[in-house]
C-alpha cells in the first residue's frame, strides 16, 4: 500500500490518494454486490437464475415477483406494518415524556434510571421468551399482533429514551426558562417549545425503531401462528417448495427489505446516533 506517501490530513494528495480512492470504491462495490445480485436474480426466470455459471444478460421478467405475491404474503406484510408502526408510536409516546424527565427537568438519580434502561437491552431476549409464551398461552394472547406490539415497544423503548434524551439535552435552557416565566404549563411547554426543536430527532428515532421492529424474528416466530405472522416469519417458511425457487426467494427478500432500505436511507445521517444509543453523534 502507498501508506508511506506523506498525506497531510485535510490536504489532497494526488498519487497515493488516487489509489486509496480506488480501493474505497472497490470495497463499497464489493459490499453492495450481494444486494445487487439479489436484485438482478429477482428479475430473472427460475431457469436462468439456476444457471451455473450465471447468465447476467438473461432476459428480465417479473415472474419471480408474481410467484411471490401468488403465495399470499399480504397478510403478513400488513401484520409487520401494524406491529412496526403501532409499536413505534407507543415507543415515542412513552419515551418522550421519560426523556424530558431525564434531561430538561431531571429526576434525582436520573443516571441510574438511564442505566436501568440500558441494562434491559443487555438482557438476552431468549431468557424472557418462555414466561411470555406461557403467559400469552394462558390468557389466550398467542398469535395476537398486540402481543408483538407490546414486546417490540419494550425492545425499542431503551433505544428511544437514550436517543431522545441526547436530542432533548440540546434544547436551550433559556427558551424553557422564558416559557416558564411566561407561565406556560408543562404540556404547553412540551408542545410549543420542546417539540419543534426535537422533531427531527423524533423522526429519526421513529425510523430506527421501525427498522428494528420490522426485522425482528425470534418473538414473531415463537409467539405467532397463521393469523399474526409477520413478514420475516413468512420469509422463513418460504423455502419449503420443491424445484427451483431462487428468483422467487430473491424477489421476496427484496420486497420485505424495501421498507427498511427506505427508512434506513432516510435516517442515514442519524443512523450512527441511533445505533450507538445516542452516545455518538
Amino acid at each position, binding site marked *: 500500500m502507498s501508506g508511506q506517501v506523506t498525506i497531510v490530513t485535510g490536504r489532497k494528495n494526488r498519487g497515493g490518494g488516487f489509489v486509496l480512492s480506488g480501493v474505497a470504491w472497490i*470495497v463499497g462495490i464489493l459490499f453492495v454486490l450481494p444486494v445487487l445480485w439479489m436484485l438482478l436474480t429477482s428479475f430473472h426466470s427460475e431457469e436462468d437464475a439456476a444457471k451455473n455459471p450465471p447468465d447476467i444478460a438473461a432476459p428480465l421478467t417479473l415472474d419471480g415477483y408474481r410467484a411471490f405475491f401468488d403465495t399470499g404474503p399480504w397478510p403478513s406484510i400488513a401484520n409487520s406494518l401494524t406491529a412496526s408502526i403501532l409499536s413505534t408510536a407507543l415507543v415515542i409516546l412513552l419515551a418522550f415524556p421519560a426523556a424530558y424527565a431525564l434531561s430538561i427537568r431531571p*429526576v434525582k438519580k436520573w443516571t441510574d434510571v438511564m442505566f436501568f434502561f440500558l441494562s434491559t437491552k443487555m438482557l438476552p431476549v431468549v431468557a424472557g421468551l418462555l414466561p411470555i409464551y406461557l403467559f400469552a398461552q394462558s390468557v389466550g394472547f398467542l398469535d395476537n399482533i398486540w402481543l408483538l406490539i407490546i414486546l417490540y415497544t419494550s425492545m425499542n423503548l431503551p433505544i428511544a429514551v437514550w436517543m431522545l434524551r441526547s436530542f432533548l439535552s440540546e434544547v436551550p435552557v433559556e427558551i424553557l426558562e422564558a416559557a416558564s416565566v411566561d407561565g406556560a404549563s408543562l404540556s404547553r411547554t412540551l408542545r410549543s417549545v420542546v417539540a419543534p426543536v426535537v422533531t427531527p430527532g423524533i423522526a429519526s428515532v421513529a425510523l430506527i425503531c421501525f427498522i428494528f421492529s420490522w426485522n425482528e424474528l425470534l418473538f414473531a416466530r415463537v409467539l405467532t401462528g397463521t393469523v399474526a405472522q409477520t413478514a*420475516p416469519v413468512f420469509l422463513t417458511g418460504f423455502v419449503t417448495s420443491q424445484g427451483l425457487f431462487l428468483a422467487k426467494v430473491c424477489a421476496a*427478500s427484496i420486497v*420485505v427489505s424495501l421498507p427498511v432500505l427506505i427508512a434506513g436511507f432516510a435516517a442515514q445521517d442519524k443512523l450512527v446516533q441511533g445505533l450507538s444509543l445516542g452516545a455518538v453523534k
Partner: protein
Amino acid sequence: MSVDAKPDTKTQSSRHAPPPGSEGAMMRRAGDWARRAPLMPALVFMIIVTQLPFVVTIIVSFMDWNAYYPDERGFAGIDNFRRVLTDSNTRHAIWVTVMLTAGVVLLSLVLGLLIALLLDRKFRGRGAVRTMMITPFLVVPVAAALLWKHALYNPTYGLFNGVLKWIFGDNAPQPDWISNQPLWSIIFALVWQWTPFMMLILLAGLQSRPLDVIEAAGIDGANQWEIFRYMTLPHLRQYLELSALLGSIYVVQNFDAVFTITSGGLGTANLPYTIYQTFYTAHDYGRASAAGVIVVIGTIIIATLALRSVSTLFREETGR
C-alpha cells in the same frame, strides 16, 4: 459529529433546585413527584414487560416442568442447572456462541476500521461509497441469511461457485460452502451485515478528531503511521470499545442467521437457538429456563466488564 462532553454542572444544579417558594418537605415531595410523573409510564412499562418475565424464568429454572409430562411438574432444585451444564450439547452451544460472537465482532471491527479510514478522506463519490457500504445493514436479517444461503453459497447455482466457473472454466472446484465450513459460513454472512455498523461508529469517531492538533503534528514532522498510532488510535479507543460492546450485545443473541442458514445443524447451534429448541420443540420448560438464566449471568459478567471500560463514552453523555 462529536462525542457529547460538554459538562454543564451549573445548569444541572439550578435545575435540581426546589421550586421557588416551597416550604417544608410536603411541597418538595410534591415537586419530586411532578418531576417523576412523565418518567413513570415508561419505567413501569419496562419493569412489567422485561423484568417480571425474567423473575418467572428464574422460578421456572428450579422446577421440573415439561409440557409433555404435565403430571410431573414440581420443584427440581438445581437439577436443571446440573443437567444443562453437564450436557455436551449445551457446552458446545456455549463454545459456538463465543466463537460466533468473537469472530463476527473482531472481523467486522477490523474491516470496519480499515473502511472508516478509507472513507475519512475526501474523494469523488465518497457519499455514494458510504451509501453502498450501509446497504448490507439495511437488508432484513432473515432476507440477508436467505441471500447468502441460496444465492451465494449454494453449490449448484450460488454466485460463489458461478464465479469459480467463470474464472477456472467447467473443471472449476465447486465446494459445498455451508457443509464444509458451517460456522464460517454464518460468520461471513454476519460480518457482511455488521461491518457497516462498526464502520459508521468508527467513522464518526474519526471525524470528531481535533484536526488542528493532527495537522500541527504533521507539520512537526510526525509521519502518517506515528499520527495514526499515537493520536488517531488513542482517540478512537472509546469508539472501538463502544462498537465492540454494542456489536457483542446484538451478535450474542443472534438467532436469524443460525436459524436460516443451518437450522442449528452441523454443530452451529448457538445458545439462543439451543434454548429456542429446548423450549419450542422439546417443551422442556425447566431446562430452557435454566439455560436462559445461565445466558443472562454470562451476559451480565461480560457486560459489566465491558461496560467498565466503555462507560467513559456514556458517562460523558450522561454527565452533562
